[in-house]
């Protein structure tokens, strides 16, 4: 039994690093969230005032809902597209490696570059998408992709989905790689269709990959600010202002580090709650 506990020695390096670089800063951040710190110089204690402001105003509650909704869209789409491509590529070994690499290329670009490329694609006047629609005779479908408050959020989400489909696909392919050959073989011999094999044989065995993929994309999307920041800066008029955008704006646009810290803590708590629930649900599913 002692030998088993000595296993924990393995975690020491990781724990040290995480304690030093994450737990310690979070404590500092929490401290800061009770002040009016401006990012530099002296800070004055303001008690819970920052938090009262967050929960006392519609603006921030709206942003929290918007962030959650954005996350739901992005994560469900990423899971479906990732699973689709992974399942197909699992069956098509000839093009598997090429396609995995190709799908993954968008995620290899930096956010800055992806953001600006899509900025040019979405531009309402001579942007790539509208011009393509015009050329195809679909001029009626032209949209003000980032400028129409009703669709801007979905345009941003689409870019995020485009960028990270290869990411979830890679996770699921790793999961497929762990499924013993014999299982697929057996299914085929039983005359199961491709869909049946996927639904009843493979999907249940992909439990760990689904957990990893859903949790990572959820956490990543809840925290994300890069694409909305470059594409819309939270606009038009707040239509895409996620909680993270407001944090960045408070930090670096207005130098309200104290308030931004309080927002960060709120975000951290949201991420932890969501992650906790997901973990519970997904692990139970795995076991079932």
């Amino acid at each position, binding site marked *: 039994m002692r030998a088993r506990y000595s296993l924990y020695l393995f975690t020491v390096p990781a724990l040290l690093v995480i304690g030093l670089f994450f737990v310690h800063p979070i404590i500092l951040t929490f401290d800061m969230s009770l002040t009016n710190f401006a990012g530099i110089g002296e800070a004055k204690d303001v008690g819970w005032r920052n938090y009262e402001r967050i929960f006392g105003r519609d603006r921030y509650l709206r942003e929290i809902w918007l962030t959650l909704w954005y996350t739901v869209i992005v994560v469900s789409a990423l899971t479906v597209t990732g699973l689709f491509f992974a399942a197909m590529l699992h069956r098509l070994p000839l093009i598997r490696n090429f396609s995995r690499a190709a799908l993954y290329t968008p995620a290899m670009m930096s956010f800055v570059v992806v953001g600006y490329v899509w900025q040019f694609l979405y531009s309402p*006047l001579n942007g790539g998408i509208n011009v393509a629609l015009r050329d195809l005779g679909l001029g009626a479908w032209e949209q003000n992709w980032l*400028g129409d408050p009703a669709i801007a959020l979905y345009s941003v989400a689409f870019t995020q989905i485009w960028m990270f489909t290869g990411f979830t696909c890679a996770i699921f392919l790793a999961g497929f790689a762990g499924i013993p050959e014999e299982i697929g073989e057996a299914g085929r011999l039983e005359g199961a269709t491709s869909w049946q094999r996927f639904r009843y044989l493979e999907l249940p065995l992909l439990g760990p990959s689904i957990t990893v993929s859903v949790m990572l994309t959820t956490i990543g999307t809840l925290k994300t600010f890069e694409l909305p920041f470059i594409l819309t800066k939270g*606009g038009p008029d707040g239509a895409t202002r996620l909680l993270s955008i407001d944090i960045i704006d408070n930090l670096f646009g207005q130098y309200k580090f104290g308030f931004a810290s309080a927002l960060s803590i709120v975000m951290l708590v949201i991420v932890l709650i969501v992650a906790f629930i997901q973990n519970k649900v997904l692990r139970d599913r795995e076991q079932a």
Partner: protein
Amino acid sequence: MEKPMTSILGLALAAGLSPAAAGAQTVLDVVAWKGNEAEPAGMPELIAKFEAENPDIDVDLTFVARKDVDKVIPPRLQGGNPPDVTMVDSSLVDLWGGAGFLTDLGTDSDWYGQMIPAVRDVMTSDGEILVYPLEVIGMGNFVNMDLLAQAGIDNAPVTIDELKSACQALAAEGIAPMIFAGGFPAMLYVGANGLDPNGVSAAEYGSGERTFVDDENFNTSLDSVRDLVEAECFDPKLQAGLDPWATAPQEFRSGNVAILPQGAWNIGNFSSVEGLNFQFAPMPSRFTEHGLALDLVGPGWAIPRDAANAEAARKWIDFFTEEENLNVFLEAEGAYSPFTGGVSTMPDLAEPYTAARDAGSLILWPFSTLEFPKILQSEWEDSITGFLLNIDADNEETLERWDYAVEDSM
């Protein structure tokens, strides 16, 4: 016991590592958001010249974009390991200087006496000057003269009536007249028509002394935006989808649109496009027949309190006090000198703007002088976009938000 030990160790390490102790070159660590490939600002030339004049100093210029300066430099200032010289703008002077991280450059210097008085007033606080200002840069309309000529117009519009008739003529020719994105171009127009150069000072709004919602000037300013829409200058709904910093300049560069309100820092970039014949003109404003020049108080150099090579840093700043050196920077930037006297380095294509300036038809952009609080800027971006999306709504809905923002900043 532990503290002194570590600091002694630190000192020993620092002494061992510092090039000065080794009797070698001083490396001057300069951080700036100019001098990169996108905005060279004459830096390569200036650095070469400075190093030739100061053979014992090597300049190591690190480019950090303005928005990343907020992330990267405060840790260094607070960690006691700042760059020797850092670029700052008025809000950074306010923030870093206010926290005591910048060195007073002294009000007894020659250059201090020569600063344009309005700029000097903005930059000086409590009898201290923490920044050596490099430029005052114009904001106004970039006008594609060839497109205007196609519509039979020879001069860049500088009054609202001229602007409206230009728009109508251009639209009749099937040319998109103007970009008016809420994120920046529209702000320039709204500001130029709300802030009376001879009337209420911007500080009165910024301090909450005067509210926007009851202000006649700003109400009229928003009304006149509707007149521009009427004159077919732009489709207000379309503007929200344009990025004022990326796609909007690209539309102008490629000759798809005749008029773009932007800053003079684009002059160099636009000039590099073959066959683009443009002028830089002041913003049409109902307060003046010359058009209103909107001058932005630009960045300057500051020496952090804990700079390791403060003496070399001084030399760097002294180098820029030489008019001929500063002019290299100004010419590359398309900017005006923050000092009185001296020759203008502005290109001819900025003649309309310079003329308005010379006629005294000029305001300092209140966001760059901190007369308007920083938070109001993002509120302007958002709310003017909102106004354009819903242009028939009451002015009050937009103006009230500005008042709340001002209130919030206090």
